[in-house]
């Protein structure tokens, strides 16, 4: 068993607070439901789609479920908006995840480092180009999906306002973006949560919110350094003054 598996106060730090984990959890539920009910429609002619539709309670129930899940997504999006606007922590995090020109340089630097052109590894912060790309791509995807979805859902109301072609475009956009999201989410999550080095079978940080110091040092060195200067000595002091907790094993 490797060291990072322990949830020791000293070896892991909280990366995702409860707020974020709950938002992520609700998002996960709604997106999985949306994908399953959406895929059922997209693949209605295959046996896979037919089984999905059957499981979802028939064709019309599938649509109702899809819209119910969409409402949850809209709620989470709205909640998130309130979180970044009105909560101090949310606002600070949001400022940190805003894209900067440096992110692009970091990305190029990382590519160069990966292939061996450069020996200098870019020093990434709490939110690197990867997290920023994930976050902003998903914000964009969600906006597109919510907008095109509302056009399709409320077509009867919007019939007088929008030209006919806009509904056809909404269908194409909704299906196209949905497929794109499915691919990006699946592939990226598979890599960063399940199959990436040190992650298998699953990285539990989405549940407990914690990241190992080793991983922090590797992937977010700037944040690690800040932490090492400010927080770790204090913690160490706290731990040393307290009675040492018994350990089953020592990695």
């Amino acid at each position, binding site marked *: 068993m490797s060291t990072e598996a322990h949830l020791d106060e000293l070896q892991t730090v909280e990366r995702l607070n409860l707020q974020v984990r709950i938002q992520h959890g609700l998002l996960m539920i709604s997106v999985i439901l949306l994908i399953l009910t959406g895929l059922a429609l997209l693949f209605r002619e295959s046996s896979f789609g037919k089984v999905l539709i059957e499981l979802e309670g028939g064709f019309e129930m599938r649509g109702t479920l899809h819209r119910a899940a969409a409402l949850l997504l809209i709620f989470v999006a709205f909640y998130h908006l309130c979180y970044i606007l009105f909560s101090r922590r949310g606002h600070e995090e949001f400022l940190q995840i805003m894209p900067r020109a440096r992110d692009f340089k970091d990305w190029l630097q990382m590519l160069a480092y990966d292939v061996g052109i450069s*020996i200098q590894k870019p020093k990434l912060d709490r939110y690197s180009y990867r997290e920023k790309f994930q976050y902003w791509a998903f914000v964009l995807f969600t906006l597109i999906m919510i907008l095109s979805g509302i056009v399709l859902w409320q077509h009867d109301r919007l019939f007088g306002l929008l*030209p006919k072609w806009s509904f056809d475009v909404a269908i194409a956009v909704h299906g196209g973006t949905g497929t794109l999201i499915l691919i990006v989410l699946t592939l990226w999550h598979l890599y960063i949560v399940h199959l990436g080095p040190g992650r298998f079978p699953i990285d539990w940080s989405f549940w407990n919110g914690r990241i190992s110091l080793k991983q922090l040092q590797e992937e977010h060195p700037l944040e690690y350094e800040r932490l090492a200067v400010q927080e770790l000595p204090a913690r160490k002091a706290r731990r040393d003054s307290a009675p040492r907790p018994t350990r089953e094993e020592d990695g």
Partner: protein
Amino acid sequence: MKGRVSAAALILTGTLLLIMLSTAHGQIPLRDPNGRCLLECHGDPEFKEETAPGQYRTLYVDYEQFKLSVHREKLCVDCHTDVTLIPHERRPEEIHCLQCHYQGNVVGAPITERPEKYKESVHGKALQHGNPDAPDCRNCHGVHDARAPYDSLSTVYRMNIPKTCGRCHLDVYTVYLESVHGVAVTRGVPEAAVCSDCHREHDLLSPQDPRSSLYPMNVAGTCATCHANEELMHQVGISAEQVEAFKENFHGIALEFGVLRVARCTSCHEYHLILPSDDPRSSVHPENLAQTCGQCHPNATDNVAKGKFHLIPSNPEAGIVFWVSQFFKWLTISVLAGLFLHILLDLYGRLRHKATGG
């Protein structure tokens, strides 16, 4: 059996008599075994019976027409089997086509499952329920003048079918004649849809019946028999992909899964008054679309005419929808490839630096 023999004997003697009495300019060929019936009574155009005071019913049989019918080889008594004595004393019983046209008959009467289908049809049901106006075989196929369907003078010849149905369904017939199909039939285009192409012939069922060709879920398939035919649609200059596009679109998909309230072909294109979209009278003319769509979508305005119909997203004719689909197709492919490459690079970098201890 005995009756048959005596009837045959009678006819024989009758015929012999007729031959002996024959005159050179007689209208009825006297060698004909049917001659007795005709010569005595039914060959006279004035021959009639009084059904009510002052009302008459003709009993005349146009023998020339009979000799051109599919039954030309038959004897009168082959069908009117209860006539065993000529002249007959009683009014012969109603005859029924199923006397001969049944499965396994030995007189060579052509038979399909059609008579059975007829019993299930709206006409057959109406007849069973005692509707005196309900048609049976004779009303469409004719009586003594029944001709084969491929005979251009037959009442059931393709091009004559609208007229035949129109004898009862006059209002529909007049509307149909205005339609693109009716006009084509009038012009003599044999491929144009006639009543039976959509409604079927013997298994003509109510549109509420799931077996009907016009049950909501079956309408597109019925239209597709012609409208998905490349060759035929090329001739009339319209796309053969309309039905396919419909099936791939929201209405068609919902219908496929049994949502019966959604629009099918006829909801927008009308049932009988089907007209091309450039005809101002057409329900799908751009000016009329707001009203047509408004049947189901009350908020519809002229905006519904701004766009294309029957889109196939992979077809460049779909315009903006084609380009949006293409954009997403290539975006998805490149994102997929890019993400894969990025993950591979990341893995490669990590493993390489792990190995070198960097």
